[in-house]
């Protein structure tokens, strides 16, 4: 479903990603790990063109993301409308939740379906309530984000992204900002999504989650893919020193 070929991204003179190539099949859960500064968040943000990649290709279902061939052998950036249209099919959940604080939980979830997809308020509300029930927050429908715990806010954020019925879900370290006891409830929702067959790309530090739920593990360091494979194997038998060093930071219980 997602094909990344030779992706590269520069911020000015600094090269943040180089020669990134991988695939994500439909229904696959790909987990990306790596030290901070490795470019993993940038890679994720390139997948929905929140950051504009400069070299290489990203294709979603065969279609080139963010660019259009200009008929002269090169390519030109798509219009804002085209990019927005495409983004409505890719959901993203952020480390800092990014809920809209001035609207209620329900309004947060229904805003995009109503204004981007054009659904009626009733239809959008039905979908929203159902999703909030799925993440366990149907009783918080009229609350405002400030009154929810971090874990609850993140679950609302997931429901908000799911309300657009996306083909792909991107998760950017969504549990890193949470108190430890709140992490579990979010991971549970993500696990359920994976079991239902959602195509997911997850950047995370939760190694046991990667091992249990991930179908493919990618280790990125300094902008390049260093190792790739089945999570259980890659984590138990790292082939490179860089991965070994990185994993040493996590306690024994994360290994097989």
């Amino acid at each position, binding site marked *: 479903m997602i094909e990344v070929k030779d992706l590269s991204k520069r911020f000015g003179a600094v090269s943040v990603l180089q020669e990134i190539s991988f695939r994500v099949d439909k229904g696959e859960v790909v987990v990306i790990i790596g030290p901070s500064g490795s470019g993993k968040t940038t890679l994720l943000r390139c997948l*929905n063109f*929140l950051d504009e990649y400069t070299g290489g290709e990203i294709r979603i279902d065969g279609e080139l993301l963010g660019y259009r061939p200009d008929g002269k052998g090169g390519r030109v950036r798509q219009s*804002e*409308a085209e990019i*927005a*249209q*495409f*983004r*409505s*099919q*890719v*959901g*993203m959940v*952020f480390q*800092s939740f*990014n*809920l*809209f*604080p*001035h609207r209620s939980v329900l309004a947060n979830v229904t*805003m*995009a379906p109503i*204004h*981007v997809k054009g659904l009626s308020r009733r239809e959008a509300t039905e979908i929203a309530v159902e999703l909030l029930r799925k993440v366990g927050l149907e009783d918080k429908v009229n609350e405002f984000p*400030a009154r929810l715990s971090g874990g609850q806010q993140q679950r609302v*954020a997931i429901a*908000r*992204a799911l309300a*657009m019925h996306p083909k792909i879900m*991107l998760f950017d370290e969504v549990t890193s900002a949470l108190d430890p006891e709140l992490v579990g409830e979010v991971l549970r929702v993500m696990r359920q999504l994976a079991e239902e067959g959602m195509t997911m790309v997850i950047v995370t530090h939760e190694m046991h989650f990667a091992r249990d739920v991930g179908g493919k593990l990618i280790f990125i360091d300094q902008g390049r893919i260093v190792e790739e494979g089945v999570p259980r194997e890659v984590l138990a038998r790292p082939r490179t020193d860089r991965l070994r060093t990185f994993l040493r930071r996590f306690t024994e219980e994360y290994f097989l």
Partner: protein
Amino acid sequence: MPTVLVSSLPYLLQGAVNTLWMSAVCVTLGTVVGVVIGILSVLAPAVIRWMITAYVFVFRGTPVLVLMFLAYFALPAFGLMINVFVAVGGALVLYTGSFVAEITRGAILSIPRGQVDAAKSLGMRWGLILRQIILPQALKMSLPPLLNNSVIMIKATSYASIVGVWELTYAAREIVERSLAAFQIFLGVMAIYFLICYPLSVLARRLEKRAAFIH
């Protein structure tokens, strides 16, 4: 005892009506202009943003009285015969606009970028993001400074009297020059301005306190 004040009250109140009228029009227009310019100063292409920086620099660094004189003398020179009221009012609108632009800009920039990222990733386009996410929050945040700013602008309408616009302060000076009852009249007129401005200041403070409480 304040006999001169009492007998002049009808005349002064007419002036007050002019002041209120001028304030209402200029502050409202100026605020609208300022909000638009403030939004542009964040989103527009570099050329326009540069022009806005220049505009804000000029209008905030020059006394409003000088701007009023400039409008009064400049417009006829370019062939536009408009009356004093409109010329001075126009200067005041642009003056207000420069302050409101800065206030709006500050409010917009203080909204965490993550919310814009989330909105974009839901497929929202800029127009929608502005309307649903940025402006509601920015305008609510701007309310106290905007109210304080309107008090400043209402006081500025009194300076128009120096350029020759007939309003409350002009009327007051007329009466004092005729009757020499300076204390009565000026204190009385100060009270009238106070009655107009004080409620706005109090409202601004109350809104500020409420916002601080929520956060």
